[in-house]
């Protein structure tokens, strides 16, 4: 087995830094190639890597109080003076950029979600040359890092063109009130100590220079005739605004009526509301998967089991976790036809490492679900800063978005999109499979609106060194 060279890999690829609650996302333009390269060179010593964290005298791991990682867009590589011949070795979708009409069509970024409406990465896509991801243990630490970074911008003719902050919410919830960030692929040579029984995924799905799920080395960019990709990867940025009031009001308005026997007939409207929201998500707000607790949340299931399941044998018809639900689309596991073996093989070839944090203040206390009836929007911008790490944007992030999230016929369904993040316009529906007969939620709305995006190359530490000394 080819062990990952962790010290050469940017830290965010290896760890989610779950203890760092405060994020800062900075978007930069290099006004001058030489200044830009100088800036990259200055940044290299500050960049957190995937190397194991040190231990103190008692053998206890010393967790870092912050981390900094960077990514470069296709425009950034040009602005730094990378020769065209080298830029041409980067993948087609990366070179087009997330806002290109071809990518828009593939991602379903149309209508309200169109890049023309974005705060960053849309109309100003060509100005977004780099992204800095900062995670800090406290707001004070974040501010301190920010001041230091700004000094570096001024010194190297780098302009800060946009910034977002993100902060972890209580209990790791996102703004709809659900526990977030649970399901992450586990790498084959993962050095994490968890004992989950999930199958592992080949490193080459997330890091260039290693074999992927096809047993192949991923396509890798070149500089001066030599590989530039190894230990690097690609990062997708999406700023996702969440309309929390619209989501919960839609749910409350669509809870089913039921008479006679059956579990639904015994539930209060509040219970039904949370149940229906969980059906759309595929998990309970607590994070417990529906396949383990189909009707009511079950707090007795330990958290280390929440990802320890497959769909095919446990829930073949989607009675518990609907085929069209958000989590079954984002990772169908062994669910897709024709067989569980084939289904798992396909699913494992389109996974993402997800990093990111919520932004904005919650609309309501997220531990009190459901929120009050007819809750009104307060006009505050809130949502999720979504970062996805993958070795092949086209085969992973874009595939998930096009063939799973936005595909109205996903998994043999008729007319459904992802009920949480799909770009719905009132014409799609959601089937709640059940025995003896399914129920249907009609006229799904869009609850998440894209407000920004970008495709970034996340070079290895050594590749950053070569980029800093180009030309």
């Amino acid at each position: 087995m080819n062990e990952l060279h962790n010290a050469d890999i940017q830290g965010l690829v290896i760890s989610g830094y779950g203890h760092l609650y405060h994020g800062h996302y900075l978007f930069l333009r290099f006004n001058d190639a030489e200044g830009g390269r100088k800036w990259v060179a200055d940044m290299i010593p500050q960049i957190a890597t995937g190397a194991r964290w040190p231990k103190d005298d008692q053998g206890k791991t010393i967790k870092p109080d912050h981390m900094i990682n960077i990514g470069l867009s296709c425009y950034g590589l040009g602005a730094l003076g990378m020769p065209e011949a080298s830029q041409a070795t980067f993948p087609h979708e990366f070179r087009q950029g997330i806002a290109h009409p071809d990518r828009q069509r593939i991602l379903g970024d149309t209508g309200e979600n169109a890049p023309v409406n974005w705060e960053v990465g849309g109309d100003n896509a060509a100005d977004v040359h780099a992204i800095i991801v900062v995670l800090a243990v406290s707001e004070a630490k974040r501010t301190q890092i920010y001041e230091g970074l700004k000094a570096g911008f001024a010194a190297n003719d780098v302009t800060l063109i946009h910034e977002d902050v993100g902060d972890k919410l209580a209990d790791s919830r996102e703004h709809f009130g659900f526990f977030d960030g649970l399901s992450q692929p586990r790498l084959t040579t993962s050095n994490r100590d968890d004992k989950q029984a999930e199958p592992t995924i080949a490193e080459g799905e997330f890091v260039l220079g290693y074999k992927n799920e096809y047993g192949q080395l991923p396509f890798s960019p070149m500089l001066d005739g030599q590989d530039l990709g190894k230990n690097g990867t690609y990062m997708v940025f999406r700023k996702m605004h969440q309309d929390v009031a619209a989501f919960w009001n839609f749910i409350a308005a669509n809870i089913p009526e039921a008479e006679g026997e059956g579990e639904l007939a015994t539930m209060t409207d509040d219970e039904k509301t949370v149940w229906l929201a969980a059906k759309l998500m595929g998990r309970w707000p607590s994070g417990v998967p529906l396949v383990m607790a189909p009707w009511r949340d079950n707090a007795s299931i330990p958290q280390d089991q929440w990802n320890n399941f497959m769909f095919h044998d446990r829930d073949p018809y989607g009675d518990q976790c609907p085929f069209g639900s958000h989590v079954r689309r984002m990772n169908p596991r062994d669910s897709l036809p024709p067989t569980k073996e084939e289904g798992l093989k396909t699913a494992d070839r389109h996974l993402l490492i997800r990093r990111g944090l919520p932004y904005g203040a919650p609309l309501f206390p997220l531990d009190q679900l459901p929120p009050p009836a007819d809750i009104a929007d307060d006009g505050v911008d809130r949502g999720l800063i979504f970062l996805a790490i993958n070795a092949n944007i086209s085969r992973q992030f874009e595939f998930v978005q096009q063939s799973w999230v936005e595909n109205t016929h996903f998994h043999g369904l008729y007319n459904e999109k992802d009920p949480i993040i799909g770009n719905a316009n009132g014409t799609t529906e959601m089937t709640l499979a059940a025995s003896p007969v399914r129920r249907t939620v009609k006229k799904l709305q869009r609850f998440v609106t894209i407000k920004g995006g970008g495709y970034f190359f996340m070079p290895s530490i050594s590749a950053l060194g070569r980029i800093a000394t180009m030309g």
Partner: protein
Amino acid sequence: MQHALTVIAKIKPGKGEELEALLNTIGQDVKGKRENSHLELGEIETLQFGRWALIPNKRTGTWQYLFFSSNYDGSLADHLNEFADKSGEAMDKIWGCCEGYPENRTRNLAQYKKDFLSFIKTHSIDYNAFYIGYRYETLRSKRIFMDFRDAVSDFFNLPDVAKVAEGRLKHHLDRTPAEVLASFNDLPAAKQFYDDRLKPAMDSLPGKARRPRPRDFLTFPLFILDFIRLFIEVIIYRPLRNQITGREPALNIDLDDLNINDGITDIEDVITQNQVTIISAIKPGWWTLFKLRVVLIGIHLVAKHFQNRGSLGGIATIHFARWVIIDKGRWLLFTSNYDGSWPSYIGDFVDKAAKGMDFIWTSAPRYPEQGAQDIEAFKNIIRVNQIRTQAFYSSVPDTTVMNLLNDGEISTTLDKAGSAEWLRRLQGGGIIR
């Protein structure tokens, strides 16, 4: 039974640009799902899928050939007569750009129909392998099944029905689906919907569905017999016939590596279905060609005898696909009408049928050494050999093979005892085959 028509006709000198503009307009109109004023394809009841694509000559930079393909129901004469009757003017405009097209339509329609049939036959090419996602379903039956499934779905979404369905149906699962549908007639809203919508849809259903032969002890011997028959036809009969009659002449197609950006991707993902037209070179040498012919006979017959219910090698998204060896064995033409995105379609091939892909396309120069498993190289070689399909038409654009097969089952098992599985089918999901 559906058929595959493949036509390649030479474009008259100087007519290429005019034809391109015309086909682009038709393509745009079909994309927007508007009826083209010159070409009411939606009215052609024998046409399931159709496409026109221009084959360029890379050396001269001009359009050399017009390629047309259709998947049609019934006889070829009836199919072409429909075009002549319903879109005659468009036929004149399109095929009039090609050499040898009869120009007597407005003067003598009866004679024209004969001449048109003869023109198409002269320029048509026999396929080497043909895959059908749903054998025996005509456009008419597909539309009837889709409509019936919609009606049943709406019925169970009626608020009065949805409210009581779970409690009632539990006790009725031994009844037939037809009886289950009628069992809600005590509810006025259900009764009215049943009378106004369900009953008429039910009455229009065909009596009994024709299904592919089930697999049994005869399947393998039939496969072998068929193989021998086709082998003789492809290896001996067709070349002889072509020699004598002059059919399927040399085309001198001259393609080169095309650009991935060359207007191929921007016409994708407009409807649920997509298409590919791939023309790949066949490496010189009789052995390569012979092997390819045998492999394609094998694929054709596996599809016919073993994999004839909506799935080819586990891939359940293909409505129709065909492989046609053209230009005296110099090129392999592949066309497919499939569900969903191009990356998921190609990914399916690699996940489920990589070996099959390798068997066929090792005949192409620069096919990846490690075969389809080298997915990025495989995707690249496909895009490089894919040509733009200027006009693509699907008669039922927003449904899938899985949906259609499911609709068919829902529509043809109403009198089967027991309704648990039938009710299951209403949710979709592609789980019950």
